């Protein structure tokens, strides 16, 4: 049982998704129950896995018992366990929120939601480059349909961009995987790391090309500067629980950057060491700057939050670009915070919009909200957390990131990140005062919000104070993770010890 635990985060959503396909319409209560139970099971599996991973052991699961480097493996180290846990926590908030009413606005919401989880969990666990492509496609296919859930012009419009761009991205991924396979003769990432270290000089150009094409794909997923234009529109148009779940999608790209480049193009790669570093660093800073402009220009609350996602992506990319152990640790702490808080803010925006009648989430004067005080308090907490004002987790996360930069990097990172944070502070206080203070003419209208919705928001936003209260265990875990990432040979040794021994 314990040895099969690694495959649970993939099997549970897969089976749940199949059960949920049983009937397209109807059976609402049954579907909600199955979906919530499956998400709870994923959460339990993620907690069990992270306790195993926290011991510092690297587990792998050879599918069909085909041993690496020939078979496909799932690898569980500290990083993947952490990402699984963040996904499960986020998914629970989103799925309970969706149970209020969003899931009935179209067909097959819960089935697609579970499959999206399958894709995300799979991408975090797999140790095989081509398998990573397959899981990317699984999560993308589910996300295409979820983005269109409920229909409407704006969703179709942004859906066309999103799908076309990602199809082009998939083609690039295949090209990159093909090049790397052609040059190294393996698709197992651990094995590839060893082969790249022993690479003959004439193949270096090929591997460089493959590695950088791969960076374009991951940049598209994580919304790096020239490739982010799909994001604000898609996230602003998506239904709230889907947008909340999408908060982890950009982090899949960040995870892939960390995993692939730290493992394959690490110190052992010789001339190819830190192949991506300059690109990720400068484009991360540029993304930060662009997001500041977007944040100030947003005229809609959901668009504003979408640009806040972009701000977090810029911060994460810049810290990935620093490529030091301290920066990786800060990145992971900030990643947990930003994923959960922006997810919660997307849910909150939907609730605010539902009580403002026609004005929706646009930042204009409208009728006052029925539950203005409670919503205002939640918005205040979320805004404080996301901007990075003490005492909530955003401040700690940003301080860690700022502190991890070395002297030259500080010169660039500090002004950019602090100005972008200032921009978000201005934009959020402007948005908050329009939504809650300047809207006081007319009678409040709209229905009271359901308990499910409140649960989703409180669940996700409570991450902000909790991450501060438990900052010590969390940051010691992220430090250990960063340390493990800085020593990729531990992973390759674990995976390939059997294979090497028999050769």
């Amino acid at each position: 049982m314990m040895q099969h635990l690694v495959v649970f985060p993939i099997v549970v959503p897969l089976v749940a998704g199949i059960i949920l396909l049983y009937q397209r319409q109807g059976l609402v209560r049954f579907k909600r129950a199955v979906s919530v139970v499956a998400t709870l099971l994923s959460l339990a599996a993620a907690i069990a896995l992270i306790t195993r991973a926290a011991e510092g052991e690297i587990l792998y699961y050879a599918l069909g018992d085909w041993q690496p480097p020939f078979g496909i493996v799932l690898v569980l180290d500290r990083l993947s366990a952490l990402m699984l846990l963040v996904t499960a926590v986020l998914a629970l908030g989103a799925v309970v929120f969706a149970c209020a009413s969003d899931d009935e606005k179209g067909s097959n919401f819960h089935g697609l939601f579970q499959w999206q989880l399958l894709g995300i969990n799979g991408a975090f666990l797999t140790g095989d480059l081509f398998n990573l492509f397959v899981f990317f496609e699984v999560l993308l296919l589910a996300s295409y349909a979820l983005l269109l859930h409920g229909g409407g012009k704006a969703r179709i419009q942004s859906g066309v961009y999103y799908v076309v761009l990602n199809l082009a991205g998939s083609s690039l991924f295949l090209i990159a995987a093909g090049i790397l396979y052609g040059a190294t003769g393996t698709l197992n990432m651990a094995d590839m790391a060893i082969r790249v270290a022993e690479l003959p000089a004439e193949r270096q150009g090929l591997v460089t090309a493959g590695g950088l094409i791969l960076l374009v794909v991951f940049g598209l997923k994580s919304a790096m500067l020239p490739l982010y234009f799909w994001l604000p529109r898609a996230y602003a148009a998506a239904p709230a629980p889907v947008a909340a779940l999408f908060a982890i999608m950009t982090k899949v790209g960040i995870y892939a950057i960390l995993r692939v480049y730290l493992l394959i193009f690490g110190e052992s790669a010789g001339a190819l060491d830190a192949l991506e570093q300059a690109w990720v660093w400068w484009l991360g800073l540029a993304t930060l700057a662009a997001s500041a402009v977007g944040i100030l220009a947003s005229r809609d609350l959901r668009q504003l939050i979408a640009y806040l996602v972009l701000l977090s992506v810029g911060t994460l990319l810049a810290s990935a670009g620093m490529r030091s152990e301290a920066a990786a640790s800060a990145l992971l702490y900030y990643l947990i915070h930003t994923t959960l808080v922006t997810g919660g803010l997307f849910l909150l925006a939907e609730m605010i919009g539902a009580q403002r009648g026609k004005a929706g989430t646009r930042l204009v004067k409208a009728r006052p909200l029925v539950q203005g005080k409670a919503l205002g308090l939640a918005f205040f907490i979320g805004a404080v957390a996301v901007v990075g004002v003490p005492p909530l987790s955003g401040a700690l996360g940003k301080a860690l990131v700022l502190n991890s930069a070395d002297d030259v990097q500080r010169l660039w990172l500090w002004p950019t990140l602090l100005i972008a944070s200032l921009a978000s502070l201005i934009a959020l206080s402007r948005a908050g005062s329009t939504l809650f203070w300047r809207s006081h003419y007319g009678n409040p209208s709209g229905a009271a919000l359901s308990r499910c919705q409140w649960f989703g928001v409180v669940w996700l936003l409570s991450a902000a104070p909790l991450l501060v209260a438990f900052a010590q265990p969390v940051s010691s875990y992220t430090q250990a993770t960063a340390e493990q990432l800085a020593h990729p040979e531990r992973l390759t040794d674990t995976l390939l010890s059997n294979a090497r021994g028999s050769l």
Partner: protein
Amino acid sequence: METLYAVTTGVLSACGLYLTLRGRTFSVVVGLTLLSYAVNLFLFSMGGLTTDGAAVIHDDGHGAYADPLPQALVLTAIVIGFAMTAFVVILAMRARSELGNDQVDGKKEDRE
């Protein structure tokens, strides 16, 4: 054979890229299809091109055999690409009916 193969892949991807950058959804869909053909051919060639090789391995265990992994990869890529193309066709039709025109950005063409 290598030259022919390379030229075919190149022409296919160039046409695919050109069509993908067009403004109307139909040509974009065709462009993406061509691009995925090109990618499939490219992947297929990544194990090295062999003629008259055994599918997996010779009876006597010696001699040239085709690398089976790219074949498996291409098969996966074809299946996924097929599903994606079906989806994007339906999406393009939905966009045409909901937005009232077939421009990718949903805005009517300026007829000047």
